[in-house]
């Protein structure tokens, strides 16, 4: 039964300053494995995959690739050895074509007399795209014209062009729609059939159960257990990740009639340059209104429009009570609307600032006395909110950039709770967040709703939409295609029908 591993990792240690990200981690990746790597945020899974792909060296320990010592000097060296990684965030280079991205650093393949033969390169790139089933992406288009999702697929095509031994997929699927996911799953299955190895990092336990044949659990930088075949079950994974029993169902469980509530925000015939077409609905007091659709359906733009970040060509967003139009974030915030962006690092958090500054930023008008903002008042507000949300931090003075993804999201939420917002727009509120934090965010949303406040939740996760929303609006190609009331009977398949 004992097979030789494609990649063997032995006793890896890695520290960042005082933080021990990995401690004595040993894992073998066998041929034909789709090997899920799971753990809460900060458990070390991204660090481990970064060490394997050569992004940074480990402090101690050794790795063997097909029995031979493997010490990647950098990410390019890792690629040369057939170890490729598709990262969570953007990995393409802007300003050049799709083909140029696929062959970045490998232009010599097409060089003729020192010049790059663009035609040959485009042809080869198109073949690479066709091979992974993405013929709808054209090799000669500029990468910037492609959607986030397609750019991810270009990265995959780049990785797959060479002889891949180990493919690492780091939380990529959370950012993709059904189409992109299906493509990734197909590639994973193919590599499995070719007796290569896939390392798959995801927070979605159902996805992991469905696609992986091996799962390794990390917790606080330590190897916990490897599950194979029948042992793979969401409950088991959850238990191992958190180290204690957790409830299976963390969505809200009430069902009832939610009609007849007063509206707080009215969206009236909004059309934008970005592609929203004549959208009208109203957000009611005390409800969670879910917005679903494919990534490029315009649902993210809709959230931005409600917060005053998108210019409306026609129609507008209004406060129902006063009829005042929302034209800028400043105006929205004065009327107690908060917005948690999908792009956490760039749009909702100041990574170079500390937790106090981040939490207090929208609330200076609330805590100032005259023009004076007392450090004590700032600290009090930050302490109160971070206590309530149980933000894991070394101190309030810690820079937000050093927090894990889940804790950053908590800071982004703390900002708006500290500001006493009555309306929250949450774009992908649990994207890239582990189960523990996810459950607490759902709990928070439920409490918020019960306090008579309203949430506009934009999400690409159907279970989350169905489990949390009072009503769900489905967007398709920039227009509303369907409204669902909260119901036990609503299935994912039913919702998807109106998305594609």
């Amino acid at each position: 039964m004992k097979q030789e591993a494609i990649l063997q990792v032995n006793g890896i240690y890695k520290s960042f300053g005082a933080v021990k990200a990995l401690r004595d981690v040993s894992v073998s990746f066998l041929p034909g494995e789709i090997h899920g790597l799971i753990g809460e945020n900060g458990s070390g899974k991204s660090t481990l995959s970064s060490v394997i792909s050569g992004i940074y060296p480990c402090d101690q320990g050794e790795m063997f690739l097909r029995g031979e010592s493997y010490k990647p000097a950098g990410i390019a060296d890792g690629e040369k050895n057939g170890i490729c990684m598709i990262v969570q965030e953007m990995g393409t280079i802007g300003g050049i074509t799709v083909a140029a991205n696929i062959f970045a650093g490998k232009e010599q393949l097409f060089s003729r007399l020192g010049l790059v033969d663009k035609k040959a390169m485009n042809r080869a790139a198109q073949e690479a795209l066709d091979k992974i089933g993405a013929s709808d992406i054209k090799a000669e288009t500029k990468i910037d014209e492609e959607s986030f999702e397609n750019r991810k697929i270009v990265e995959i095509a780049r990785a797959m062009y060479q002889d891949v031994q180990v493919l690492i997929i780091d939380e990529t699927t959370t950012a993709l729609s059904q189409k992109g996911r299906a493509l990734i799953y197909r590639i994973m299955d193919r590599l499995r059939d070719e007796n290569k190895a896939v390392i798959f990092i995801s927070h979605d336990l159902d996805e992991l159960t469905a696609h992986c044949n091996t799962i390794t659990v990390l917790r606080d930088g330590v190897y916990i257990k490897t599950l194979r075949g029948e042992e793979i079950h969401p409950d088991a994974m959850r238990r191992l990740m958190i180290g204690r029993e957790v409830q299976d169902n963390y969505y809200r469980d009430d069902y009832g009639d939610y009609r007849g509530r007063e509206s707080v925000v009215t969206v009236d015939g909004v059309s934008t340059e970005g592609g929203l077409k004549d959208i009208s609905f109203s957000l009611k007091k005390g409800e969670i209104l879910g917005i679903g659709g494919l990534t490029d359906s315009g649902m993210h733009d809709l959230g931005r429009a409600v917060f005053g970040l998108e210019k409306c060509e026609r129609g507008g967003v209004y406060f129902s009570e006063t009829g005042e139009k929302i034209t800028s974030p400043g105006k929205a915030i004065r009327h107690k609307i908060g917005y948690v962006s999908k792009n956490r690092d760039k749009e909702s958090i100041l990574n170079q600032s500390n937790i106090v500054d981040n939490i207090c930023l929208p609330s200076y008008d609330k805590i100032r006395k005259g023009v004076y903002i007392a450090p004590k008042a700032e600290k009090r507000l930050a302490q109160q909110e971070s206590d309530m949300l149980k933000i894991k931090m070394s101190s309030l003075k810690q820079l937000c950039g050093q927090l894990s993804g889940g804790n950053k999201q908590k800071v982004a939420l703390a900002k708006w709770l500290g500001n006493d917002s009555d309306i929250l727009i949450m774009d992908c509120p649990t994207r890239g967040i582990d189960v523990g934090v996810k459950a607490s965010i759902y709990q928070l949303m439920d409490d918020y709703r019960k306090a008579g406040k309203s949430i506009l939740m934009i999400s690409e996760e159907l279970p989350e939409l169905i489990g949390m929303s009072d009503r769900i609006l489905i967007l398709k190609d920039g227009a509303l295609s369907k409204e669902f009331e909260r119901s036990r009977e609503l299935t994912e398949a039913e919702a998807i029908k109106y998305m594609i």
Partner: protein
Amino acid sequence: MKLKEKIKIREIVPFLSLIAVILFFEIATNGTLLTFKNMKLIFNQAFVLIVGSVACSFIVAQGDVDFSMGSMVGITAVCAAWASHAIGVFALPAAMLLGAALGVVNGILFVKFKIPSFVVTLSTLMVLRGLTIFIAGGGSVSVPFSLYNYDSFPLKLTICIAIVAAAAFCFNHTKLGKWSKAIGSGITAAYQSGVPVGKMRLFGYGLSAAMCGLCGFFNMVRAGSAATNTGNFFETDILIALVLGGMPLSGGSASKIRCAVIGSLTLAILLNGMVCWNLNEKVQQGIKGVIFLIAVWLTFDKKNTSLIK
């Protein structure tokens, strides 16, 4: 642990270099540096540097620069000199108002017309210098004798302390400072948290130029006239002072008013020390350039900056 030590070192480097500069020139000039008479000279030089660098700290905290400061000083000085014959000391508020108005023009070009700030301010640097030469008629404009009294040490010291205190208060404990730093830390996140980015930019450039008006006035009363070259290279001196003080030019939460004050003192002593040391003027310019390079190299956080931009 290592990272923490590094940050602390970066914070004390400006203090250490100030002390080093004082010690070096005190010894090199056989004690002339720290005589009372010379210290007054140093203060006169440091005064405009401190006022200027403190004022532009708000715009620097936002991650922007103001290259037009030299010409702002020039044009406000020349206009104030003209005006002073008619309105006397009221030329001071007039100069500041003129500065503020021109600064707001900088801001509008940047915010409304979306031209990058360094292009805008470099352009106004040139345009305003040309205008200054035109107004001054190629020579200099004299100042009435009655205004010479305003070149007084106690008055300037009081103004200087008041400005630094007010700026430090605003920078650390009011929305003006906190919002400026938030813009430098992450402009998109700041905007989405309700920071009025456009208004803050207008404010920053307005303030910077208004204070150039103040500098212009005191330059003028000190020299007894305002000339076409008044304020030349003021903007680069300010930049050097800020960097010497350890101010991050990328802006953000690490910005501090302290940096502007310490850097201005260091630069003023350095310039004065080189004169006392009888260094050739051309050599002085060269040394200034070299020091600028070294200061940037020492204080610039290469790793973190690449993270921001």
